[in-house]
């Protein structure tokens, strides 16, 4: 049923819109407010409700204003951006996602205008607000700007690395002092921060293969590093996964040896039917435990199956072999 907007002055209509919103009729409330803007374009309550932003004598939607902000940033019109548009946008940011988007624009604008320390504070606030893993990147940027309040970063190696070794075209930075105003320099500095974030995890890969807690901690460290610089940890994740999967497979093989000893012992001891049944159940349980380790290994190596050589195939064959043993045991259990 089509609803029509009742006539009336703007304030009364706005009150109606708020009522509609409060009762869950959000789209009706939105429609009423849009209608009000035709009667009274500058009604502040209505515009706030619609998340509209006023800039350059024009009202625009939040997303339009963000796009305008990007344009101003690219064209270097920072005073206008920082002095007028961004404060308006921030006032209208009613969700965490919007606050983060505006915060990021503000930070970038402040960096471009040389206000590095202020930008550092913005990113520190954002890292407290943002969920993981995004918070890690903001925290890294806050750290960089706090450590380098003059916006100068010391690059130790050429960046990007691929350009240096492959001689690719496009811009690259040589080692030495660079400005964080330069997007490529900021990218390079985040690369270094990401490398720092995963340094301890890299050293612990061998330990992580044997210790599930260290393994989880290493994965988290790699997640953090990848949040700061996408995919930086990939080679190490592959190594970690292969090492952990191989360790689990090794444990499964040891357990299987013990299992086989127990099976051999079965036929050598006299026992009544109940005891035999109990033994079979025990063996099946042990087999489930062995299979669980192999399944875990398989899950760990699955994302990196292409790079893991024959390990996924070996685990699959082990599981298939276990399945044959399980079928035999189950058949025996069923018969008895």
């Amino acid at each position: 049923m089509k609803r029509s907007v009742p006539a009336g002055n703007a304030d009364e209509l706005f009150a109606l819109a708020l009522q509609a919103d409060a009762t869950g009729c959000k789209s009706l409330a939105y429609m009423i407010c849009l209608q009000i803007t035709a009667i009274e374009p500058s009604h502040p309550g209505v515009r706030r409700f619609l998340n509209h932003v006023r800039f350059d004598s024009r009202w625009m939607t939040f997303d339009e204003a963000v796009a305008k902000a990007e344009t101003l940033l690219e064209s270097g019109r920072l005073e206008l951006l920082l002095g007028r548009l961004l404060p308006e946008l921030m006032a209208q940011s009613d969700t965490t996602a919007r606050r983060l988007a505006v915060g990021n624009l503000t930070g970038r604008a402040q960096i471009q205008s040389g206000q590095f320390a202020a930008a550092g504070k913005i990113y520190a606030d954002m890292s407290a607000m943002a969920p993981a893993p995004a918070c890690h990147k903001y925290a890294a940027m806050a750290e960089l700007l706090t450590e380098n309040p003059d916006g100068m970063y010391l690059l130790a190696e050429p960046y990007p690395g691929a350009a240096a070794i492959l001689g690719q075209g496009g811009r690259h930075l040589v080692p030495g002092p660079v400005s964080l105003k330069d997007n490529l320099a900021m990218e390079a500095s985040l690369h270094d921060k990401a490398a720092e974030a995963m340094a301890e995890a890299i050293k612990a890969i061998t330990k992580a293969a044997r210790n599930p807690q260290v393994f989880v901690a290493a994965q988290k460290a790699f997640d953090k590093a990848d949040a700061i610089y996408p995919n930086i940890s990939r080679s190490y994740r592959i190594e970690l996964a292969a090492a952990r999967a191989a360790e689990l497979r090794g444990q499964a093989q040891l357990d299987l040896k013990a299992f086989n000893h127990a099976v051999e012992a079965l036929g050598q001891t006299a026992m009544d039917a109940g005891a035999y049944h109990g033994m079979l159940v025990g063996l099946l349980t042990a087999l489930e435990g062995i299979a669980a380790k192999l399944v875990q290994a398989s899950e760990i190596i699955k994302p990196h199956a292409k790079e893991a050589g024959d390990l996924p195939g070996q685990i699959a064959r082990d599981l298939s072999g276990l399945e044959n043993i399980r079928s035999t045991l189950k058949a025996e259990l069923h018969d008895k």
Partner: protein
Amino acid sequence: MINRYIIPAVLLIAAPVAITVAAESRSDKSVELIQKALALLESGNENAAQQAAMPAANAGGEQGARAWLIIATARYRLGELESAIEAYDLCRKTSSSKTIRDYAFDRALTVRKEIRTRLKPETGEIPQDAAKRLAKVEQVFHFASAPNIFVRARNPELARVIASRAQILLEKAWYGLGAEIKYPHQIRIFVHADRHEYAAAAPPSPDWSCATARVDNIDGKLIPRIDLTQLDENGQFDSRLLDRILPHELCHLAVSEYFGPDRCPLFLTEGLAMMAEKAGDPSRQILAGQSFMADDATGINDLVSQEMPLRKPELFYSLSYSLVEFLHSRMSSAQFKAFLNHIRTGCPFSHAVQRAMGISYEEGFIALLAETWKKHSMQQSALLQAVQQAVQSAGKPDKPDAGKP
């Protein structure tokens, strides 16, 4: 009476605020200067970058140290090496940041080495009178030693020269690999007068061989050993001995110790040893480039995984040298050491290169690397052939290039 206190009270309140505002203003000014200098440096205006950074440098403190770093970089890029070192030293002395101090220290060291290399280019040639003295073979053995070297030779001067030079070359190779501890053995170097004496004393080796390096296990103790030949087939002092053969064999021993037995891939063992030679042989690079042009080169994956040069050994060694030289030329010293360390810890070649260069791992990288290496090799080969032809047509005797140590 109240009026007497108003002005001092106002001053007391205003003073801290004024000081803070002044400090912030100085700091803002300093940031502005640093940023201006960096922009000029990035755009290649090194002189202007120096001028822009100087007021901040003269202001002292941490900002001053950072400004000195910009000035040092600008001077280095202008080729003003001595004054670049001065600026790096000033940066190091005034900075409270360990990262900055360490960087400035390393840079000053690197630039000093660069100056020394430029002043004393290595020609790999031995003066005639020295060659005559070193060709003398006495009946008795003479001995000389250095901390990690023990030499036995039939020429006292040769024994001393080899001992001192071998120590320097060993340390260069050892620390160049990235080792952080001292080389733990004493290497025994036996210099045999000629091929007959060498063949009798050294392990079975091809006819063309005149030097070997090996590690003997004597009563459970590892004793590295090098056997060398003093004279060439013409009875003259072998001019390759000090600048090519000795560094080559020492590098083999350093690599063997650093990587552990059987853990360094063959292409890398041989590539590093050939790179250690002071006066490189351009024929290797020429052969490598020619094989690419003729589509006869071993693929990179096969090259890095070969344990023995089964097919065309000469080509294998040339390609090995070419690949290792290419990687070394494209990586910084720290990156190359990181690459070696990754290989040492069992990392596959493609992963090791990408990790060392800080590149996020991609399967397709190795194909791009192979293509870039191929182009590099062909260009080098063409250039070296052109140089050789030019030298030959000028009527001068052909000499090996200095090449990379």
